[in-house]
């Protein structure tokens, strides 16, 4: 069965599927019930599954994650919604001290199959704290997995995999792409969320992106005079650097794109790994096209902060001219 769905709707469908296939899956978060979440990703689910499967939480993120851990110990598979990227930090302690460590601490006795959905990234003209890209903080934490889809199909497949995973998964949703449409195959899983996927093949430069920047990278590829291979990471942790290396072995050049500040952004890790594994085949320095090392700016200025296809093209040119 295929359908033309928005990312938001694909996520909604994935939640529905997960709830249908496992009665232990429950949704928990602020305003996710009647309101359907501020982005309506949980639309209709409260109505269809009821109070015991879709729970509105008090306004306290540490509380949401902290109690979800207890729910998981009791056998539930909570899928949490954090309303915006900038509001996950009150829960950071529970995430790093408990969520990420309990399975290891208990020698495998206690599993915490918890998914934390977080709409993230900029570009929607929002006020402060509503446009952050905090993936570094979670990718650096052992014990967590981190996924982020880029289109409706990966949204559907990644979210289902996240919920089915027996490990805690931080699931970043590219909020400014929520309304992008695409086909979704729901009968099987045509996408392996844990692997990077080549979303456009090319021979001159490998461009690695994830989440909202995949579309931007594809735009750049369309506009470039060079042949760009665009890779969508999907999984930020574990990082599928082998797929990147395979591509770089062919192209000899790498450009990495993300919205988060460059300093210790994910691009740093990718550059470090590929710089080592492809040391003898890299023909140019690895380029990073990222947010600057500043707090996310007020919305009227966000376009100057966010990587766009021009900045990617300039980086591609640098790589080609090196």
């Amino acid at each position, binding site marked *: 069965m295929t359908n033309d769905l928005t990312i938001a709707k694909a996520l909604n469908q994935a939640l529905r599927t997960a709830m249908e296939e496992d009665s232990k899956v429950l949704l928990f978060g602020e305003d996710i019930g009647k309101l359907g979440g501020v982005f309506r990703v949980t639309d209709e689910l409260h109505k269809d599954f009821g109070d015991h499967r879709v729970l509105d939480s008090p306004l306290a993120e540490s509380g949401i994650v902290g109690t979800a851990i207890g729910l998981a110990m009791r056998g539930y598979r909570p899928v949490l919604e954090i309303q915006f990227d900038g509001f996950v930090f009150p829960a950071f302690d529970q995430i790093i001290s408990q969520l990420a460590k309990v399975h290891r601490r208990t020698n495998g006795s206690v599993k915490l199959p918890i998914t934390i959905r977080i709409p993230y990234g900029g570009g929607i003209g929002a006020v402060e704290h509503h446009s952050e890209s905090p993936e570094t903080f979670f990718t650096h934490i052992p014990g967590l997995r981190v996924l982020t889809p880029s289109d409706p199909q990966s949204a559907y497949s990644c979210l289902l995999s996240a919920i089915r995973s027996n490990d805690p998964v931080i699931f970043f949703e590219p909020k400014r792409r929520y309304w992008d449409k695409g086909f979704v195959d729901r009968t099987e899983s045509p996408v392996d969320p844990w692997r990077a996927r080549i979303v456009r093949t090319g021979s001159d430069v490998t461009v690695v992106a994830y989440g909202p920047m995949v579309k931007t990278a594809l735009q750049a590829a369309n506009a470039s005079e060079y042949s760009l291979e665009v890779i969508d990471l999907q999984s930020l942790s574990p990082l599928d650097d082998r797929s990147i290396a395979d591509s770089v072995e062919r192209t000899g050049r790498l450009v990495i794109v993300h919205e988060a500040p460059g300093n210790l952004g994910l691009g740093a890790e990718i550059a470090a790994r590929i710089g080592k594994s492809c040391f003898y085949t890299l023909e140019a320095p690895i380029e990073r096209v990222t947010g600057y090392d*500043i*707090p996310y700016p007020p919305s*009227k200025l966000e376009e100057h902060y966010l990587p766009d296809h021009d900045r990617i093209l*300039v980086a591609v040119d640098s790589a080609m001219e090196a």
Partner: protein
Amino acid sequence: MTTAPQPQNPAVQLLTPEGELVTHESYSLDLTHAQYKSLYREMVFVRRLDQEATALQRQGELGLWASSLGQEAAQVGSAFALEKNDFAFPTYREHGVAWMRGVDPMKIMEVYRGISNGGWDPLEHRCNSYTIVIGNQVLNGVGYAMGCTLDQSEDAVITYFGDGATAQGDVNEGFVFASTFDAPVVFFCQNNQWAISQPSEKFVKTPIYKRADGFGFPGVLVDGNDILAVIAVTKAALDRARSGAGPTLIEAFTYRMGAHTTSDDPTRYRHENDLQNWKLRDPIERLKVMLARNGIADRNFFDAIDIDADAWAHTLRAAVRSMGEPAPESIFDNVYADSHEALDAQRAAFLDYHEGFADSGVQS
């Protein structure tokens, strides 16, 4: 869905919804006619500001707006009670407070237009930037108050938060720190019945003001739509704070008459009825009736204010529409207070890059 809840315990009231002055055993307020009239004027302007901003948002001139409609008495009244050197820590909704602290409304507009994240100078107005992360400002305010004590000054602090915010760890830690250090702070909770789509009675099983007791300081419930009671109660709490007796929690029972923000759609979660009930308790109307009934002000006065407010709103609108935009490279400003070579280098590269596009005629 339920009908509009009433505070379970009698709230302090000095002015009934019908505009009658009443007495209270513990609180009273003695204002001049000029002061009553000025309070009315402030509330009307704050409401007009709110209306105008809502309209500007619809027209695309603002990115977002969080309406203060219905909460004018709680905001204007509590801020009126402050001394000049006191310090206010608002959330994102306290336009009435910012107004009373002398913040230029254009600076508020800057924040919701997306030109600045802060707008005004908090130290100049002794009114902190709006805080969006729920609860954060409560601890910041308590810390400021601790500083007032260390300075042996008589300054006090008021920190605002909503009913929803009472769930946050930070708010409760604020109670602990304030209690421990007898910090001169007033915790001013506007229980506007809603945290986005969540009715406050869902998460708050006991009246909010009762929370204070268990942290070792008093809590007071006040009719938040009665500006006189709000002033009296807040003044008393500030006096207590100044005297070194420590914090007070005030629960101002009010109602969010608008949507949570312009992005919100309250029809998904609340009945129109609730709103109608609360319209009968409108804080501005109430004071107006009192002023008229007691012969303090007449129709000419009210009309003149409306005309002033209209004119003012007109200017505001025009000013917002023609607001300039900061230079792109200003995104690098003030990230650090001391010099920072690495960031200077990023700014330089940024300028070079845009220079490049300008030269080549490419649109960036």
